[in-house]
């Protein structure tokens, strides 16, 4: 037998898409049969090696997936709760600042009122009685 199976035909055979002609050839040709057997041995040995190798690698125990899943599903709820807690913690500070601001506004208003009343005066406060006498005299003797 001169025509042996090509590498592609052997690959096809191992992949499960060999033809009837290939099967017949493999029954009759010791060379191709040997080549196929060697290749299949190598593939099987690789599978065993990798499985053994993987078994030697320690896997760290998985963290509880249930907990991680629940957190993942509820993460927006957790975020909202954290935001609400933060807002509540800041409320007293806000209220304190508002009260301080309002007290300052009251003081400012009182000061402004005093300034206005001072400005309304036409003479100094010490001369006010004299001004009153003069005003009364003018009214009596126009």
């Amino acid at each position: 037998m001169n025509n042996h199976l090509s590498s592609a035909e052997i690959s096809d055979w191992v992949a499960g898409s060999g033809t009837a002609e290939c099967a017949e050839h493999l029954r009759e040709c010791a060379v191709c049969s040997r080549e196929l057997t060697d290749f299949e041995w190598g593939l099987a040995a690789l599978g065993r090696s990798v499985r053994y190798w993987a078994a030697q690698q320690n896997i760290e125990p998985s963290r509880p997936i249930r907990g991680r899943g629940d957190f993942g599903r509820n993460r927006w709820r957790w975020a909202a709760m954290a935001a609400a807690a933060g807002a509540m913690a800041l409320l007293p500070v806000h209220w304190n600042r508002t009260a301080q601001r309002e007290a300052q506004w009251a003081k400012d208003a009182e000061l402004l009122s005093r300034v206005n009343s001072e400005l309304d005066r036409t003479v100094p406060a010490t001369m006010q009685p004299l001004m009153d006498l003069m005003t009364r005299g003018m009214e009596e003797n126009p």
Partner: protein
Amino acid sequence: MTASMDDPTEELQDFDRVVATYERAVFRFALASLRDRDDAQTLTQECFLRAFRHRNRFRGKASVKTWLMQIAVNLLRDRARSRRLQFWRRTQQSAIDPCALPNVLTNRELSPESQTLLSEQVRAIWQATGNLSGMQRSVFLLRFVEEMDLLEIASVLGITEGTVKSHLSRALGNIRERMRKTV
């Protein structure tokens, strides 16, 4: 017991048991694909986390193992798109090598010379798989490491059985081509 055998969705009721049963297989596939223990560990955990979150979508058309492998393959595809895998592709040649475990290949039926030849062949195949495309490597590893049949692989990858054969044949052809150059 028969309920879980007949209806795969029943199996997901006890998720801790699902993890205990299939964690090794998913990790092994991830390890063989990525060739890095930590990366494989991370991918395995991501796989089970995604499975847990989407467990209500599992309809039981395939086995739980097939479904988990589908998730693992999708995660590997996601990683293949990231730059991180490009880094691993560059470094994987120096990563841990399963062929560095000669006792695995010990076979009393083989002569020492045959064992040496077999070791060399295994090493050559392993190196060659590192150069396969993502799809070819997944098909190859599911077939020869996970020992899945062609229909199972088709279900995992969401392709037809004929396409699986085609990818597998091309993968084997590439491996044989590389082996011819190295052995």
